[in-house]
């Protein structure tokens, strides 16, 4: 930025291409371009009343923003865990089941079909936060102090989590009839934008502020880049790894609140199923190294929106059920390969060659 602005045009472009956030932005633009050409009505936003008479916004864009919320929140925690420990937590889906189950257990008490709330939602949420952070800490201790590979360590909770969730509610499926819980997953009366969108934005703002005003970002990156040298510099790598897992636990609790808010009930076996893979993918699409070290939070967040954008686009195109995952995989392979450093280097070289020829 300090350079004179004579050739800003080119340098800005170069900077864009070489910056990490380029990949998710390019993906978003590509998807947008595709939808514009295919059917511009994709971007139409309507306002109209829902069944309870609130004026609410609807349209594909709103659907994307709404449904990406949980993924965005998880991507925040997953990015930190990836950066510090060089591995991923595959138990977040199961942990969401646990957090959701705890919320419903507190709200319903012992009667799974009770008509009034047994406790305020905020209390249920705080208890769920504590439980989810404890499970996060469990993962964190295994990774940080017992030096178990993150994927192996979190495999334990991945396997057991949904059974634990079912056990918390005695294997019953509680249903909350009070509407106030549904505000967190749908709309607050009088506000036309889905609540999860706000929750996700708040989470992103909080983490950006934390990264800006604390040393969390610096410390996690240095631990991820070189554990030994960061210890020599007075950091405690174990503690920082543990901390990232606890933060992920907090993200899980927030995502769990949105999930149970959507339907005011839970299904232990399918709630947030396979979301861990999408969360890891969001981190990868953001161009972050899955082996740890440097990270770009905003890129991960955009990566999460890209995934939902893609899903919604595929639904709109009515890709047949058998082929849906295959199409998703093809797009993902393309994006991930393009974001790989080796490929980008080669592409850059190719670009230079072409330019020389032109000249």
């Amino acid at each position: 930025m300090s350079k004179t602005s004579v050739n800003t045009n080119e340098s800005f472009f170069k900077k864009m291409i070489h910056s990490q956030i380029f990949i998710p932005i390019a993906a978003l633009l590509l998807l947008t371009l595709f939808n514009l050409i295919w059917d511009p009505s994709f971007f139409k936003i309507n306002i109209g009343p829902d069944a309870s008479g609130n004026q609410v916004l609807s349209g594909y864009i709103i659907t994307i923003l709404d449904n990406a919320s949980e993924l965005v929140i998880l991507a925040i925690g997953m990015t930190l865990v990836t950066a510090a420990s060089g591995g991923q937590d595959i138990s977040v889906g199961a942990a969401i089941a646990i957090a959701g189950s705890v919320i419903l257990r507190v709200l319903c008490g012992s009667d799974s079909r009770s008509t009034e709330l047994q406790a305020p939602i905020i209390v249920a949420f705080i208890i769920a936060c504590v439980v989810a952070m404890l499970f996060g800490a469990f993962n964190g201790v295994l990774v940080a102090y017992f030096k178990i590979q993150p994927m192996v360590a979190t495999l334990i909770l991945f396997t057991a989590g949904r059974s634990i969730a079912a056990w918390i509610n005695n294997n019953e499926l509680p249903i909350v009839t009070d509407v106030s819980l549904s505000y967190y997953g749908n709309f607050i009366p009088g506000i036309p934008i889905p609540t999860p969108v706000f929750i996700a934005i708040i989470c992103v703002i909080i983490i950006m502020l934390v990264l800006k005003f604390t040393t969390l970002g610096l410390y996690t990156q240095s631990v991820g880049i070189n554990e030994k040298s960061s210890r020599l510099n007075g950091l405690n790598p174990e503690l920082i790894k543990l901390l990232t897992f606890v933060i992920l636990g907090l993200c899980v609790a927030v995502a769990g609140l949105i999930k149970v808010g959507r339907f005011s009930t839970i299904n232990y076996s399918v709630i947030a199923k396979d979301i861990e893979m999408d969360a890891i993918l969001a981190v990868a699409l953001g161009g972050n190294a899955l082996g740890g070290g440097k990270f770009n939070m905003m890129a991960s967040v955009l990566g999460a929106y890209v995934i939902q954008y893609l899903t919604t686009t595929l639904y709109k195109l009515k890709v047949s059920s058998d082929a849906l995952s295959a199409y998703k995989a093809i797009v993902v392979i393309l994006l991930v390969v393009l974001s790989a450093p080796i490929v980008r280097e080669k592409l850059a070289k190719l670009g230079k060659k072409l330019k020389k020829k032109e000249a």
Partner: protein
Amino acid sequence: MKKIKKAMALALATSMALGLAACGNGGAKSDSGKKDGGLIKVGIINNDPNESGYRTANDKDMKEKFTKENGYDASFSYSLKNDEQIAYAKKMIQDEVDYLLLSAADTAGWDSVLQDAKNAGVHVILFDRTIDADPSLYDASIVSDMAKEGETAVNWLKDQGLSEYKIIHIQGAMGSAAQKGRSGALDTQVAADGNWSIVTQQTAEWNAEKAQQIVQSVIDSGESFNVIYAENDDMAKGAVAALDKANISHGVGKDVIVMGYDCNKWALEELLKGNWNYDGQCNPFQASYIVDIIQKIQKGETISEKTIIMDEKGFDAGKITQEDVDKYGI
């Protein structure tokens, strides 16, 4: 490995010994169980009860029927993995159960252990799921006919006499028996009748949220539809959530017909309120059928029909009563 080999050797040895003993006694084994403690020894291998509401109800039903009071000494083992289930089966054969009740996780791989059971004089009764094995290896198999469930539902829909059927078809996890049976009937009907068309056909993998997104996508596109055919209750619920967001009326006498499967209690309550139109049953209550068969075998009768298909109902929102909800809700 050593342990497994040991266990296998033991299982083989016991089964052989038992086989010999059975020969010696001239097949009096089935009586001896009753005479000994007065209890019939039953080993039950099931899938994890947390798997779904269906399984929870199924397990509860089993536990209620096979009690000491009813004359059974029952032991339960659960796993979603075939190899673990086979290990349980071996152990139960060693424990000399009279009956082995099995809901197999996977259709393949059961031949040798069932042969062991046969040699040991253990009666095998399959429930809920069939396996790829010679029918001589088991005494009976009690299953749901998913294709028939689908036909019942589609026939019900036909009877509604709509002038045009524009259907959103939300499928279960692709390839599962329930998905194949329930999709099959609808696909056949749509192909046969020009008045029936599919607006979209997508899998939501039994997941309410994915179903909501699928229906939301159709609403956002502005296409019209008047039937939601969801292959389980959770997905029907997700679809209804999307309808509610867009203020599209659904249920008895409204714009959109909502159909679900599995007869969860909360789903039947939606029917009772008239918010949904139809719910197809997938009967998890196999225990009474099994009891019948066990009693027949105990009396020395032969089982004429090996494969027993359970009665399964389809509930219409106009006709359902509170009694039905209490009786059939799972």
